Every structure is written in C-alpha cells, then in structure tokens.
C-alpha cells in the first residue's frame, strides 16, 4: 500500500502551525478535502485546515462527530495518546520540548554529564584497545 496514514475519523494528528503547534489532536469529522474538525488534550474543538496538521500512524476508534466526554473516555480506554508519546516520534518531540526549557545551570549540568559519559566511554575503549 502506498499510503499508510489517512485523514479519517479517529486519526491522531499533530498541529504543525499556529499557537497550538506541537499539540496532539484527534480528527472528529471531515468538512471537506481541506478542512477537518479536531479536538485534543489542550485543544478545544475547532475547525482546522489539513495543511496545518501532520498525520500520525495512530487511530482511535470513535463514532463520527463524537462529543468531548466520550472522546476522552475512548482515548483513555485505547491509550492512543500514550501510544504516540511512547513512540520514538513522540519521545523526540518531548525531548526537544524539554531541551528548550533548560535554564543556564541545567545546560551546564547536561554538558557536565556528557563530558563524564565521554570519559567513561573513552576509558572503556582504551582498555579494549589495550587488550587487542
């Protein structure tokens, strides 16, 4: 199959433009080929252009145009949002978000830990080279 991800009811997608950029939403209804109705944690229900979303491989099975309460229940049952957050894509997004929030002292700690890790690796490598 050429395409694996579709604009469909229940498709989990990511907003990639605007104030709510980076937020995960579920497609609830399709208005036409350019617009969908989405809702998600931190995003009240709204109409959105498909040019502003990126589709993820995850789908939650919900009836068409479901109300918010049932949507939350279904999301919790099927854990689709957690599934996405555990995926490498989700983890990478969370990682980048966290890195952006680092303060100066935290950046220093990260560099400090990286140096320590590099020292340990080099020491281990040294031993291996010595053995050869």
């Amino acid at each position, binding site marked *: 199959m*050429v*395409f*694996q*991800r*579709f*604009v*469909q*009811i229940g*498709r989990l997608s990511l907003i*990639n*433009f605007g104030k709510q*950029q980076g937020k995960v939403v579920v497609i609830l*209804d*399709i*208005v*036409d*080929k*350019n*617009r969908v*109705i989405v*809702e998600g944690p931190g995003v009240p*229900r*709204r*109409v959105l*252009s*498909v*040019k*502003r979303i*990126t*589709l993820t491989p995850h789908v939650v099975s919900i*009836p*068409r*145009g479901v109300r918010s309460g049932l949507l939350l229940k279904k999301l919790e049952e099927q854990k689709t949002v957690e599934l996405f957050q555990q995926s490498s894509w989700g983890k990478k997004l969370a990682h980048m978000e966290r890195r952006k929030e680092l303060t100066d002292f935290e950046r220093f700690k990260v560099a400090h830990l990286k140096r320590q890790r590099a020292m340990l690796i080099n020491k281990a490598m040294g031993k291996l080279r010595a053995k050869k």
Partner: protein
Amino acid sequence: MLHQFVICGRKVPTGTEATQIYKMRIFAYNEVQAKSRFWYFLKKLRKVKRTAAEILDVKEIKDKKRTSARNYGLWIRFQSRSGVLNMYREYRDVTMTGAVAQMYGEMAGQHSARFDTIQIVDVKEIAAKECKREKVTAYHDSKLAFPLLRGSKVVRNNKYRGTFSAKRPNLF
C-alpha cells in the same frame, strides 16, 4: 469576509395609512453593501424605491463558533452572459455564511460570475439524506479516509524555513 444581515425597511408614510415593513436577509461584505443590495431587491419585488423609503434596522447575524460540519443548499438566480439561469448548489461548511462564501467563490471560478450577477433566492441547511450533489455526499460516509497528498504545501512556521534540508520532505 462575507457577513449575513437582516434589514428592515418601509416606505416613508405620507398620510395616516399603515405602511408595510419589508424584511430581507442579505449576504454582503459590509453594511453599506448590504443596504444597497436590500434596495436593489426591494425595488424589483415591490413598488418601493430608496428615495421614498427608509431603512428601519440593520442587524448582522453573527455565526456562532460552530464545530460540526453541515450541508447547505443554495437556490440562486444567475445572470450569465447569455441569459438568466436558476441554479441549485450544495456545499459542506460549518456556518451558513461560509457556505454562501464558498458559492460566490465557486461561481466566480466556474462561471466567472461577479458578485452582482448572482441573486440568492434561498439558503437552507439540509439533512444529509436530502443532499444530491456528489461533491457533498462523498463526505457523508463515516468510514471515509483519504491520504494527504502534499501537493498542498504543508504550512510551517516561518522560523523553520531554510535553504537546505538534510532529509527528504514528509509527503504524506
């Protein structure tokens, strides 16, 4: 942006007899245009002219922030180059003004129709069953799924633009 107005007008009373009040729903881009369209239609429908009449009230009907897709049927009378045509068109949109705006856009695209050559006879929200146009009924299937063909450029924040990219763009 298109707006929906409800305009009331009447003939200026000369004697003591009661005057008839006319009310119309007009789609226009601003209030001035709405009033002018009101007189344009009223003159055609009744023996009332702007010079001997007055506008009683202009009220804009604000669309509530709707978040569910609806189907709209539009009956219009279109003055094309070769004659007058009555048309029935259908659109899927979230608000009525949105559907009417889609109509004006589509008429301009397909028939190079100007705003003033189109007279809206009626606009109604119609149930999914009554929809006739395939363009609209295609979206009624709840199992509908279509891929995103990235011919439509993905909108990204200007901050992430660059001249070069290390990896191929994500096209779906």
